[in-house]
Each structure stands twice: as structure tokens, then as C-alpha cells.
């Protein structure tokens, strides 16, 4: 029984990181239909922002979080404003354009901050493990879990309980009709994209103490995030949550049984098989889109 509990907590830890990273992508992809391959680079930017704030300005992780969210959100807003909004009629081309954005961001950071690995210090308060149900759990991982759940809650409220969310959902269902009712689609899209980018930045900031920070770290995250979103079913927040949980647990168990690489390979392949069997994802919302 001891192993099972610790195994589940490892899985939960992976799942909460996945959820953090996938949440922003799920919002952007699910509502706007934009495939943002620069998502991983937004995560990377978030990590670098924290590193920069910590190293040069002496601002700790906690204090920096809001700042990072705003900063990366701003980057996302600029990208949407200058690029994405020109491509709403060509969703496949958003893949290409955002990939180009990813290249620029990645190289820009490489030129500005160097290609070497950077490390971000964990907040002092969370360095020591805490006792939980008789086990020593990393306080930082628990913190990440709490933040992930909190962000999920905020996103849920935003989408389903606010005027903004109502307009967003209206546009998602039918953009033209929504505009006839006076919804400013451009503004909503800009804000949504900025929010998704901000979430990615937060995710990067939060994982930075656990993993080394490098300019090309985003590539892996974007693939992970897409698999989570696609497996869970686009346009379904619940699906994203469930699939992060499943994929997180599966990764944890498989990594325990073999090693990290094999775990990743097997999980990826399983998700591909899953998409084959359930092309709509596990928790597809039955929304008919025109």
C-alpha cells in the first residue's frame, strides 16, 4: 500500500504540471481553433522571466508570478494582434505562423541570455519536504498542485461565469451570429490569446525550479500539452483535466516500471492510438461547428 500512495502522488505531481501547461493551450485551441505551436516558447519565456527577475532584480518566485503572467500575456497579445488575427480564415496556417514565432522567440532568448542551462531557486519556504499522511512530500510539488487547481478554478469561472466567458462561448459556437449581437470578436480573441499565453508563462515560471531552463525547453512542453488537449477532447476543460490526470499517472507508473524515456514513448504512442479510436477525444463536447 505504501508504494501505491507514493506512486499516486508522483502521478499527481506530473499531472499538475501537465495541467498547468495544457490549460492555456486548451483555452486557445478549444475556443479560437488556433493551433499555437509557440505555446512551448511561451512556457520557456515564463521560465526565463522568473530567472531574470530572480537573478538581476532579486524578485522571488512568489512575487514574480503575477508579473510573469502579465508580461507573457502581453507577449501573447502582441502576437495575436500582429499575426494571428490575420489568419483566422486559414487555421492550418496558424500552425506555421506560430511555429515561426516559436523560432524567433527561441533564438531571441538564445541570443539574449545564452544557450547554457539556467537554474531558478526554489522559494525558501518550500524547500523542505512536509509530512503528509505519513509520507515526506515535496512542499513545492504540493504548491504546484494547489496552484494548478486554483488556476483551473479561475479559468472555469472566467469561461462559464463571466460576461467575457459568455461572449467567448458565443463566438466559439458561431462567430458571425455572435458579432451580429454586438460581441466584439477581435477584442475577445485578443484577450483569450493573451490569457492563454499568460497561463503558459505561469506554467513555465512554476516548473522552472524543478527543471533546468534552456531556450529549447519549449519543444517538449508543446508536444506534451497538445497530446493532453487532443486526448481529452478539444473544447472541454473537464477533458483536459481528466487527460492530464490519466497521462500523469500513466507516466508515473511507466517511469517506475522502466525509465523516463520509455515511459514517454509508451504514453505518446498510447495517446496516438487513443486518437485513432476516439478522434474527438475522450470527453468531446457535442458542439456542432459550422
Amino acid at each position, binding site marked *: 500500500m505504501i508504494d501505491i500512495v507514493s506512486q499516486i502522488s508522483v502521478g499527481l505531481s506530473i499531472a499538475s504540471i501537465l495541467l498547468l501547461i495544457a490549460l492555456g493551450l486548451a483555452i486557445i485551441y478549444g475556443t479560437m*481553433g488556433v*493551433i499555437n505551436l509557440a505555446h512551448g516558447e511561451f512556457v520557456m519565456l515564463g521560465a526565463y522571466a522568473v530567472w531574470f527577475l530572480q537573478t538581476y532584480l532579486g524578485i522571488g518566485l512568489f512575487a514574480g508570478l503575477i508579473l510573469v503572467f502579465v508580461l507573457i500575456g502581453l507577449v501573447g497579445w502582441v502576437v495575436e494582434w500582429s*499575426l494571428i488575427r*490575420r*489568419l483566422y480564415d*486559414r*487555421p*492550418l*496556417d496558424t*500552425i*506555421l*505562423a506560430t*511555429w*515561426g*514565432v*516559436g*523560432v*524567433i522567440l*527561441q*533564438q*531571441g532568448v*538564445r*541570443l539574449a541570455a545564452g544557450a547554457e542551462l539556467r537554474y531558478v531557486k526554489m522559494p525558501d519556504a518550500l524547500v523542505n519536504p512536509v509530512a503528509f499522511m505519513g509520507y515526506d512530500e515535496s512542499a513545492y510539488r504540493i504548491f504546484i498542485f494547489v496552484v494548478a487547481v486554483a488556476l483551473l478554478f479561475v479559468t472555469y469561472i472566467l469561461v462559464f461565469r463571466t460576461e467575457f466567458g459568455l461572449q467567448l462561448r458565443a463566438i466559439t459556437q458561431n462567430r458571425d451570429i455572435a458579432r451580429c449581437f454586438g460581441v466584439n470578436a477581435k477584442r475577445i480573441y485578443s484577450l483569450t490569446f493573451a490569457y492563454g499565453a499568460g497561463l503558459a508563462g505561469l506554467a513555465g515560471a512554476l516548473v522552472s525550479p524543478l527543471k533546468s531552463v534552456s531556450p529549447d525547453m519549449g*519543444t*517538449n512542453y508543446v*508536444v506534451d500539452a*497538445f*497530446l493532453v488537449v*487532443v486526448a481529452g477532447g478539444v473544447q472541454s476543460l473537464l477533458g483536459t483535466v481528466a487527460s492530464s490526470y490519466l497521462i500523469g499517472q500513466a507516466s508515473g507508473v511507466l517511469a517506475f516500471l522502466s*525509465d523516463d*524515456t*520509455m515511459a*514517454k*514513448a509508451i504514453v*505518446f*504512442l498510447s*495517446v*496516438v*492510438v487513443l*486518437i*485513432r*479510436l476516439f*478522434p474527438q477525444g475522450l470527453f468531446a463536447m457535442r458542439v*456542432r*461547428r*459550422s
Partner: protein
Amino acid sequence: MKGNGHIKRTLLGYFAFCVAILIVPIFISDAYLLNKFARYLVFGLLSVALSLSWGYAGILNLGQAVSFGLGSYCMAMALKLRTIPIQTGAGGLPDFMVWNNVQTLPWFWEPFHSYAFALFAGIAVPVAVAFLIGWFIFRARVSGVYVAIITLAMLVVINLLIIDQQRFTGGFNGITDLTTFELFGVQFDAYSTALYYLAAIILSLTLLLGFAFVNSKTGLILQAIRDDETRVWYFGYDVANYQNFIFCVSAAVAGVAGMLYTLVMEFASPTFLAVPISLSIVIWCAVGGRASLVGAALGAIVVTGVQGSLSDTQAFLDTWMLIMGALFIVIVLFLPNGLVSMLELIWRKKRPLQGSASARLVASRASRAGQATGHRAVSSR
């Protein structure tokens, strides 16, 4: 695809390109430069592979480097087994296996003692992998975005596995210290004119055969699928089979490019099937013109050529990627069919366009089937 005159004109362009790359060695005798040019041609071939599936069938394969890398490894394995001295241990083992305490040659290395098998595998392995992936995704009528994501995920997985299985693949270092490839008594040294000609001839043949193919009936159906997949389903074609077919053809071409690349570079490395090269292929294709084989080849040659002629320092390469990213975005935004489409725009001004051939083919099939109109896809956004 706009009538016979257009095809003739385009074919002329293809011939001009082939002649141009074939006469290069007459003017250049510097071995180093020739090796560089051969490398550009290999990239051109790789770009043509993507153009076949992306430009002509709308399958955006972000994992094209998988086929390229597998082809490259097949060639490297055969060359490695012929290296003298081949081993530092017993039983003809490649050196990196000895370092990793592998006692006997793994079974899947055995057949690579034969060049014939290696050449076959260099095409067959990428095609087999592509067929499996294609069978999975196209049968489920997965299209567009999902294809891009799945192929990207496969690229990451296969790259991880190759690095992870260091004992059999050389891991991060790849397979190095290779012997010179020899076929029918000709030595294809990396810096030889022979290798350049090999690359140029293969690229020329691929372009001409490819041109004939994309203008054949199958090619037109593929273009119809690219333009409106659901509509072609409604006309009774098995779209998935067509898609998987072109996916495999594209993998085969990329596999050949991979084999050539091993000869040109004299090693195989996991970087050959990493994300950056896959990204580069898409950029070359987009810059040159995805819906034109020769355009795609030119895109690769021009982009890598400019890159190679300016400088090779790391600082420059970083800046170069920055420029490439920006150029890529500009092309996607304003010139979706690449630089070649500018030429076509000029032609189009001279002669008015008369309905594309693929549309006519589908229309004739429709009237035979007694369906006056095809319904627009409900699912396509």
C-alpha cells in the same frame, strides 16, 4: 495544372533546373565546395518529399525528419559494418557497441552486411513506419491539425528512442567513422564529383517523375483531396488510401535523401531526426512554394545556400534562424504559395485562368455519378 501550355512551360522550368544542377561540376572543381553543394541538393530532395505530401495532398507532416533520419541510419549501419578496422572487440562489432558492453551484433544489424539490403531498408523502413502512422491517422479520418500534432509527437518519440538505445544506435554521438560507399566499382567519397552527380541525378529524376506523377490522375485526385477532402469522399474515392499512399511516397523520397545525406556528411546522428531539421524542411518548402516540386527544391537550395555562403559561426547561425523565422512568417502571411507563386502571378496576368484541372476531374466524376452538387463539409471550419 492550367492546361497544356502551362504544363509545357512548367516542364521546361523543371528541365532547366535539372540541367543547371547537372552542369555545376564543370565549373567547380573545389572538392569542399562540391560537397557543400551536394548537401544543398540533398536538402532539396528532402524538401521535394514534403512538397509531395503537404503541397499536393495537404498533409502537413511535421515529422518528415523521421523518414530522413531512418534512411540515414540504414546507410550508416551498412557503412559502419565495413569500416576497417571495424571493431575494437571480437565478432566484428562496431566500436560504440564494444564501449557499451554489447557482446554480439544485434539481429537487426546482421542484414546490413549487404549493401543491397541496406539500400532496400533505407527506403523500406521509412515507408513501413510511414505506412503504420498513415494507416492510423488517415483511417480515422484524422486530418489537418491532428496530422501535424501526431507526426510531431512521433518525431519526438523516435528521436528519444534512438538517443536512449545507445547500445544499438550510438546514442547522442550517432554512428561515426564510416567507410566510403562503393557501388558498381565507383567510390562515392563525400568530396568526390561522383557523389555530387549521384545527388544531382537522383534529385533530377525525382523531380521529373514527381512532375509526371502530380499531373497524373492520382495526382489530381490528391490535389482535390487537398482542396476539399469531404467532397472527394462523397464522390466515392477512398481518400484514406490516397493519403496514405502519398504519405509513403513522401517517406520513400525522404529516406533516399537520408541515405545520401549520410554519404555527404560521413556520419549519421540523432540530430538528423530532431525537431529543428523538421522545422527547416517546412520552412524551405514554404519559402520555395509548397505546391511546386521544383519550387520546394529551390527553396531548400536557396535558403541553405545563403546560410552556408554567409558564415558558419554559431553567433551567425543563431541570428540566421531569427531571420528565417521572420521570413517564414512573412511568407505564410503574404505569399502562401511561396516564391514560385510570384512567377505564376506574372504568367497569370498574361493569360486568364481557366478552371483548375483537379476541379474539372472531380466535376466530371460528379456528373457521371448523377450528383449535381457536392455538399460542403459540415465539419470543415
